[in-house]
């Protein structure tokens, strides 16, 4: 896969994984018609070991695991879609895998769908960052007597 396409796919797979399950369900129901597909790897729940780095940027270490659901599907065209999503979320992973395959197939209606999901995530991030920003300390220096 050329680097540009890899970058596109990296983006949409990340957006699909980070979407709320209800948002994925809504996107799914907006699909023109329920797509035909076969399960290559049915949604499977397992663990991924999350790694950190000593001091934030030193040697890697194993922090602890997280639950993850993965799924792979194949469209009638032969195109294969994959999904890896945090948590125990079989329906989310299956739908994300199908949408991954449809996007690779060049389904034109799905681009705006990814934009919409990404915008929702950006909105959540901005809201949290504005709440945090309201707790930022503004220091002011007291006038000292000896001056």
């Amino acid at each position, binding site marked *: 896969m050329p680097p540009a396409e890899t970058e596109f796919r990296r983006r949409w797979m990340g957006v699909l994984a980070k979407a709320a399950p209800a948002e994925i369900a809504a996107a799914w129901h907006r699909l023109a018609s329920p797509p035909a597909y076969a399960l290559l790897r049915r949604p499977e729940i397992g*663990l991924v070991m999350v*790694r*950190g780095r000593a001091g*934030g*940027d030193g040697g890697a270490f*194993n922090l602890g695991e997280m*639950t*993850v659901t993965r799924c792979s599907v194949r469209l009638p065209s032969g195109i294969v879609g994959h999904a*890896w999503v945090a948590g*125990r979320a079989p329906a989310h992973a299956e739908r994300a895998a199908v949408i991954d395959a449809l996007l690779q197939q060049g389904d034109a209606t799905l681009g705006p769908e990814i934009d919409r999901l990404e915008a929702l995530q950006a909105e959540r991030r901005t809201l949290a960052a504005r709440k945090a920003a309201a707790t930022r300390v503004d220091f002011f220096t007291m006038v000292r007597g000896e001056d």
Partner: protein
Amino acid sequence: MYVAVKGGETAIDNAHRLMAEERRGAPATPELSLDQIAGQLGLAVDRVMTEGSVYDRELAALALKQAQGDVVEAVFLLRAYRTTLPRFGASEPLDTAAMAIRRRISSAFKDLPGGQVLGPTYDYTHRLLDFALAEGGDPAPAALAPEPLDAAMPRVADVLGQQGLIEDNPAGDESPGDLTRQPLNFPAGRDLRLQNLARGDEGFLLALAYSSQRGYGNTHPFAGEIRMGNVAVELVPEELGFAIEIGEIAVTECQMINQFKGSKTRPPQFTRGYGLAFGRSERKAMAMALVDRSLRAGELGEDATSPVQDEEFVLAHSDSVEASGFVQHLKLPHYVDFQSELELIRRLRAGKEAAE
């Protein structure tokens, strides 16, 4: 003498039924939902995820419900559950510099790029019981600043590190050891020490960290930076060959910076201790960072004279599942052991009386 003991089955079944009834509490009171636990007892959930070593809020909430809020028992339940799941692989190391910050403070540097961000905290509260909470009711909504935080919030230690006043973090093996796959041997590398501390019991690490501050292995620490927020988790699926984000997790990171007078090979500079934990686990991350630094005594040529600097002592006793298992196994029948000790005492006494 071996005595086969049977006959407890009915008693055990009934004891578990009694426990289930007690766990439910008064039937007229509405039952707790997992959403309520995950949403309203979030810090307990974070602790269970951290020490249970599985990031999954719903599972941790279930473990807490099942254990009637007993955190150590809930940690045990989560650890037991994880053994039923396959391991798909390991993530790329988290990039905490790119964290979506919800809290970020430094007690060492007042004016840091991005500012001091208090976030949701119990610091500066008066610790007075709030009887309004007993009544219930919705709180005032959180204040919203017109602009979000700066996108770039560099780690404080990295800023000072550029001037060489703080040690660099030594690079390490990119495939770190894993305590869940291989037994812990000593001396352990820093990778295994950090994994052990990350899973370790908060109370144990807190007490050890405290001991180091009181003089049992002096650490002279400053909280260089504490940050809490969401980080993306990336991994490289085999079928893709490139990294993708699979979600975000909340973590708390603590960088302690510690006075260091220098050694034959190193100039005087600040050294670092590191703490990282799932969720909002600030006390845990701070204690972990202090203990991590203390355990580097050997590497930095310091005299290791205190318990907190003794790797084997710390790492072998930090795990609450192992510790509570071994302490609580004393409840299991030891009738035969005790009988034999009783015989021994009787014989010793008889021998002593005969001699007199």
